[in-house]
């Protein structure tokens, strides 16, 4: 009972926050009912996917302060588990998704133990390395389609297939990922004020102090890393059935890892709304910039330049991201 109450307890946010959040949720819920382009729909689904990745990252990266740049490997494990299960044994999504999450968690424990002996930049680099190594392995592994990857042929199934999550129209995917999004948000709301949540913030603040307060720092980080991993892996599974075509270069690339971390940091690492704000800003920017500038003017890559600029500006002025700016402003006004 207490757990449910804690999950639904948003009482420490100001009323304006909750009002805005509610308005956004209503908008998101109604969005498919208004006329929209297929491109806008795809962008919205990307937004949900990446805000969920960001939420997962936020546990270890935001609250725990461990800059993890290797989340793509768990996108890959989740996506490949679901894909392989479906194509080889016709195992539906709702079974393969938890299996993928379990595999991801196992892998996260195996590499998490040595990874968290490292700190700061060394940790970040090591996460990149593990992710790239796994990607390279998948690129030569015939069983999972090697470099060409795997693809679902939709005509083999009978959409709408709720078991395997094969649909013709994006609106189905939209509402399914929307439900995931709500669950993710509620979980994060529970997490941020849980014992582990506070312990992580204490670790981020000062590890020595954290240890003196009875926190097993190494284990707390590994546990949180597993939680982040589960998040990413589950959404990775969804990503696979939605995109229907996965290959290591795409699903597990360094770009994905960096984008995940970047969004959470841009929005505000270590806050509930941060990853959502970050995804809300970056994903539309990314897709529309590419659409408008990249393809038409032959300026491929200008979106990357603009991103880079945003990152530089944010990290120079407010390292705690967009939400950090809001909080700073509020703090000043209270005084």
């Amino acid at each position: 009972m207490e757990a449910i109450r804690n999950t639904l307890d948003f009482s420490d946010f100001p009323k304006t926050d909750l009002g805005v959040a509610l308005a956004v949720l209503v908008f998101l819920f109604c969005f498919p009912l208004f006329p929209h382009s297929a491109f806008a729909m795809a962008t919205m689904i990307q937004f949900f996917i990446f805000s969920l990745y960001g939420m997962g990252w936020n546990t270890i990266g935001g609250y725990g302060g461990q800059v993890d740049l290797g989340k793509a490997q768990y996108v890959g494990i989740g996506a490949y588990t679901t894909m392989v299960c479906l194509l080889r044994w016709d195992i539906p999504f709702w079974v393969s998704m938890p299996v993928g999450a379990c595999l991801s968690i196992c892998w996260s424990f195996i590499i998490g133990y040595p990874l968290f002996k490292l700190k700061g930049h060394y940790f970040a680099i090591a996460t990149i390395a593990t992710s790239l190594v796994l990607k390279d392995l998948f690129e030569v592994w015939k069983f999972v389609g090697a470099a060409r990857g795997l693809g679902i042929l939709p005509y083999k199934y009978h959409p709408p297939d709720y078991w395997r999550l094969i649909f013709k129209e994006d609106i189905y995917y939209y509402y399914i990922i929307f439900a995931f999004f709500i669950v993710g948000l509620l979980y994060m709301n529970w997490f941020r004020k849980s014992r582990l949540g506070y312990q992580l913030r204490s670790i981020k603040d000062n590890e020595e102090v954290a240890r003196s307060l009875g926190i097993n720092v190494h284990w707390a980080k590994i546990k949180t890393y597993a939680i982040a991993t589960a998040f990413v892996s589950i959404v990775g599974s969804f990503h696979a059935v939605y995109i229907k075509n996965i290959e290591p270069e795409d699903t597990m690339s360094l770009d994905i890892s960096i984008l995940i971390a970047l969004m959470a940091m841009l929005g505000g690492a270590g806050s509930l709304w941060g990853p959502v704000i970050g995804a809300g800003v970056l994903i539309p920017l990314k897709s529309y910039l590419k659409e408008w500038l990249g393809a038409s003017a032959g300026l491929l890559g200008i979106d990357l330049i603009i991103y880079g600029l945003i990152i530089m500006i944010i990290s120079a002025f407010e390292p705690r991201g967009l939400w950090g700016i809001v909080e700073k402003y509020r703090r000043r006004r209270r005084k």
Partner: protein
Amino acid sequence: MALLEVHNLVKAFGGLNANDDVSFVIEKGELLGLIGPNGAGKTTCFNCIAGMFPPTSGRIVFDGEDVTGLPAHEMARRGLARTFQVYTAGGDLTVGENVLVGCFMHTRSRSSARSKADGILEQMGLKEFRNQLVSELPVAAQKRVTMATALGTDPKLLLLDEVAAGLNPSEIEATMAGIRRINAEHGVTVMLIEHVMELVMNISHRVIVLDYGRKIAEGCPKDIVRDPQVIKAYLGERYVREHATEFGGSAIP
């Protein structure tokens, strides 16, 4: 009964013995002062006891159990809490949240951790600051936050590292009362490192003096201030001339 026994503690950093064959005992309920010049190895001694790093040699027995080399979080679970000399307050935890982290050590339940934290905040006079960042507080309040956070873990032994440094006389007075209350009312055994002699000599039941990593004296405050070795190494002639009478002794000729 002894709560903490330290036997022949040695901690070497390279060729330097920061603690050299230090032995002492803390009785349950005692208030023990640890003094000595800068670099005498006081904080190193704390760090060894608290498990921040393992001693090079020697044995530490806490509450009847050999705890030599146990990591810090295990020591905390066994009832040892400490404060830090330099409290980094750059984090984004508020005062209330800081105290809450300590209170979460023995429970997973948020409501019980929270009510315990409320009690400690009230008792340490920090209630008005609860929603502020530690860095926004005056130094005296920051020091109280470190003590409050440590108290949240329900310690049997509390190690205080220079909690009176940088405070003005009236704040020192208040800190003194606070430490006494923790010791007497809550039955927490206290060991403190302090350079503010007024505080150490007034509240300690017993004082240990370190110099160059070695224990050079041990005894009740009024004997310590007259110990020629301590005067030479640390206190200085002037201090003793001005203060010796306060401790019931006559001024040294």
